[in-house]
């Protein structure tokens, strides 16, 4: 069964450093998403991406965040200057339709020290 994959599984970085979280969505999907989940809390939407541009973003997704689909398979989330409060699990998701099931990856645990 096809699945969303994410790398790395765990990223530790120092405050102020840039990080890039990588995702490989399901191959025939067209819609891509990033979410985050601070430990013990609910999953929060960050951004959605369709047709090579951002479709929707939340207030969490400020100028420190960016997304890119550099080739036909990868979807990345970049945080330019990490803050302690960016520590969370970051989930990538993809779907084949704009309205439909979003398939989530296993997540990348980001720890900012």
């Amino acid at each position, binding site marked *: 069964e096809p699945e*969303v994959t994410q790398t790395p599984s765990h990223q530790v970085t120092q405050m102020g450093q840039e990080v890039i979280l990588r995702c490989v969505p399901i191959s025939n999907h067209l*819609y*891509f*998403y990033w*979410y985050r989940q601070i430990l013990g*809390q*609910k*999953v*929060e*939407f*960050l*951004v*959605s*991406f*369709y*047709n090579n541009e951002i*479709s*929707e973003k*939340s207030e969490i997704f400020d100028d420190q965040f960016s997304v890119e689909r550099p080739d036909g398979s990868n979807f990345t989330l970049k945080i330019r200057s990490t803050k302690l409060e960016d520590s969370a699990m970051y*989930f990538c*998701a993809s*779907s084949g339709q*704009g*309205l*439909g*099931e*979003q*398939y*989530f*990856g*296993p*997540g990348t645990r980001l720890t900012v020290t």
Partner: protein
Amino acid sequence: GESVGLHLPTLSVQEGDNSIINCAYSNSASDYFIWYKQESGKGPQFIIDIRSNMDKRQGQRVTVLLNKTVKHLSLQIAATQPGDSAVYFCAERTWAGGGADGLTFGKGTHLIIQP
């Protein structure tokens, strides 16, 4: 305030019993709802979805009920098994006119199955 929320943070049921997990939402414009299951250390896993033009949908051992009048969503799991132990999230989508709309998740209910 919360757009989507759950009434109980923890629900404990006996193995083999049925369980009902509830969710309230406040955005009457939401047109699509999903239940996700999240096991420890994993990403959310799709369970079942329902569109706003329906009030009930059944899957394998699971049923989702949608009451738009009171903006309430529930997930019923029949004959619970140990593998059902997880945190369950409801999520809603509000059409924003874009190509891909993010989901708003509730806080989650931790379902504990007792032997």
